């Protein structure tokens, strides 16, 4: 069965500093990977996704993630964060066979400080 691990429950960082949120998954088959962001009292919003092709995917607001099959990772990065990036970030996976529902990691709280 697939699973997702987000090792960091909280990541405090100063504004304009770079950040990396780590995500590792386990699966015996091919996977599709997602990062979702949840702002306070809101639902989840898709940030970016990896389905196939280039292993580096980017979002419109400066985040990027790289699929590394050998390390079974899909870490999220941003070179310079803003206060408005403060939110909960969830890594999720769905396998290329069988069920399509997302399996989520436990989330990482990104706290951007001025």
């Amino acid at each position, binding site marked *: 069965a697939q699973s997702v691990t987000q090792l960091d429950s909280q990541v405090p960082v100063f504004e304009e500093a770079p950040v990396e949120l780590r995500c590792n998954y386990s699966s015996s088959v091919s996977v*599709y990977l997602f990062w979702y962001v949840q702002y306070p009292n809101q*639902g*989840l919003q898709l940030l970016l*996704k990896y389905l196939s092709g280039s292993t580096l995917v980017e979002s419109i607001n400066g985040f990027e993630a790289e699929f590394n099959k050998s390390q079974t990772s899909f870490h999220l990065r941003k070179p310079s964060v803003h206060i408005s990036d403060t939110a909960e970030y969830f890594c999720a996976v769905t396998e290329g066979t069988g069920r*399509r*529902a997302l399996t*989520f990691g436990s*989330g990482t709280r990104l706290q951007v400080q001025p």
Partner: protein
Amino acid sequence: DTAVSQTPKYLVTQMGNDKSIKCEQNLGHDTMYWYKQDSKKFLKIMFSYNNKELIINETVPNRFSPKSPDKAHLNLHINSLELGDSAVYFCASSQDYGFGQPQHFGDGTRLSIL
């Protein structure tokens, strides 16, 4: 125009009561989901419907019963509410049941059992 809308946003009730949460999507999607987010922010799939047909039914107590009157609606009825049912319930939808389809989430329903 809200894409995935849930009502109510907050639900406070006593143990033993029966309650329903409604979900509607105006995206023209075929597939809808219910997720439960616990107090530690952990998200887990409960149910999924594709074209009004139940396709995922996780190990959820029988007290939870989803109903899909049409493709645009997926409601969740909960009987004999228990303290452990306190959580945020998210509805989501995707274009279809294809692999790797991104899911669009509602803002959640915060259920509190007294």
